[in-house]
């Protein structure tokens, strides 16, 4: 299919946005443009027929990563907010020329590839879909055909949470005095986010959605509550959110973080008794995948929240 004018605008806009955000002299502008870049990317994913990715990109790529970047900006030392510039000299020139050459060569290869390309795995995935225990092809690849990758990816997330926690700043709450209007919004938005997370988790079996998108929403709810209910800030009665934040400390938080990984690992090893690593027995695939996804969504939510707090935590007072 040939590209339309809209595609040229989208692709060109994406590249231009990338160039501007990478070489802007205003760091804050770069960060804001990065969020826009993520959202534009989500539009591209929809255009390319990948709504799962659009959801994940908007929630994780633009949402969580953008929040991380902005949180980091607020904690920069005063001298670190400016001091912009570009390294120049022969090495920079050389790398620029080399990368331009690489880009040209790769586009040349892609153009040659365009004519004669193998079909990929789509046919095989669709043929085996009935055996996979789920109806959504992407979920089938993620949790059945290539479940081993997804399992390890949970390991990567767990490691990152562990490492970010090591740097201190593991305390929840940003110590900020928040607006009562924001609190009002959070009070009814947080339960809605949790509900939507559950919906996305269930929906992942047959349509775009799944554990990662659900986990990102859970993390969003957590971040919102942490912004609004800083521990020990003012005299508001300790409601559910704060009780939950108090409860999830230390051992319980670490347990929550590793629950998804441990459940996945347990299933993988237990299945070795009767078959291969992570080979679901006939008829059990759907139930086991749901079990893994539920545990994984909780852990992903907790891990993303910990990542955010690790970057944003320990900040001095100032209204959000």
């Amino acid at each position, binding site marked *: 299919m040939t590209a339309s004018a809209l595609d040229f605008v989208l692709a060109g806009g994406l590249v231009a946005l990338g160039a501007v955000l990478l070489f802007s002299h205003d760091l804050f502008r770069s960060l804001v443009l990065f969020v826009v870049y993520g959202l534009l990317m989500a539009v591209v994913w929809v255009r390319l027929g990948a709504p799962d990715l659009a959801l994940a990109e908007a929630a994780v790529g633009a949402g969580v990563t953008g929040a991380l970047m902005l949180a980091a900006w607020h904690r920069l030392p005063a001298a670190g907010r400016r001091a912009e510039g570009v390294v120049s000299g022969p090495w920079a020139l050389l790398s620029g020329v080399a990368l331009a050459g690489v880009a040209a060569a790769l586009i040349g290869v892609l153009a040659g590839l365009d004519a004669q390309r193998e079909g990929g795995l789509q046919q095989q995935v669709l043929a085996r879909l009935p055996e996979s225990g789920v109806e959504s092809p992407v979920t089938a690849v993620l949790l059945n055909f290539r479940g081993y990758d997804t399992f390890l990816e949970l390991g990567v997330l767990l490691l990152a949470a562990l490492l970010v926690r090591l740097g201190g700043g593991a305390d929840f709450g940003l110590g900020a005095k928040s607006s009562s*209007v924001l609190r009002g*919004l959070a009070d009814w938005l947080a339960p809605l986010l949790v509900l939507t997370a559950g919906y996305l988790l269930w929906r992942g079996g047959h349509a775009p959605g799944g554990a990662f998108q659900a986990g990102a929403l859970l993390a969003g709810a957590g971040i919102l509550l942490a912004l609004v209910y800083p521990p020990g800030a003012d005299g508001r009665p300790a409601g559910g959110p704060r009780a939950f934040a108090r409860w999830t400390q230390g051992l319980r938080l670490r347990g929550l973080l590793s629950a998804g990984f441990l459940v996945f690992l347990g299933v993988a090893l237990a299945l070795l008794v009767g078959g291969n690593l992570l080979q679901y027995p006939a008829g059990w695939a759907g139930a086991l995948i749901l079990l893994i996804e539920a545990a994984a969504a909780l852990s992903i939510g907790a891990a993303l929240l910990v990542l955010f707090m690790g970057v944003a935590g320990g900040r001095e007072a100032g209204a959000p």
Partner: protein
Amino acid sequence: MFDALGLIFAAAGVALFVAGTAGLLRFPDLYTRLHALTKADTLGLGLVCVGAALHWGDPLIALKLGLIWLLVMASSTVLAHLIARAARRDGVRPWEAE
């Protein structure tokens, strides 16, 4: 019929977004820009949602679109409030015509 009506609503919404963006670029201070922006978000998006609902003609989709509109409205309202409040605290003074 519904299609044509939907198109009209969507076009009106887009026009409001364009107006809002023009306001964002042209207005003199933070408070007036915020004013332009939130108008576009609430009314413009609402019109686009109505247009889309008419285009699809499915009550379930219309429900979802309504939910989207409500959520965006709630969040943009609160955000506008937070930004304006923070600006006032930092001592940003409203623009006054000379």
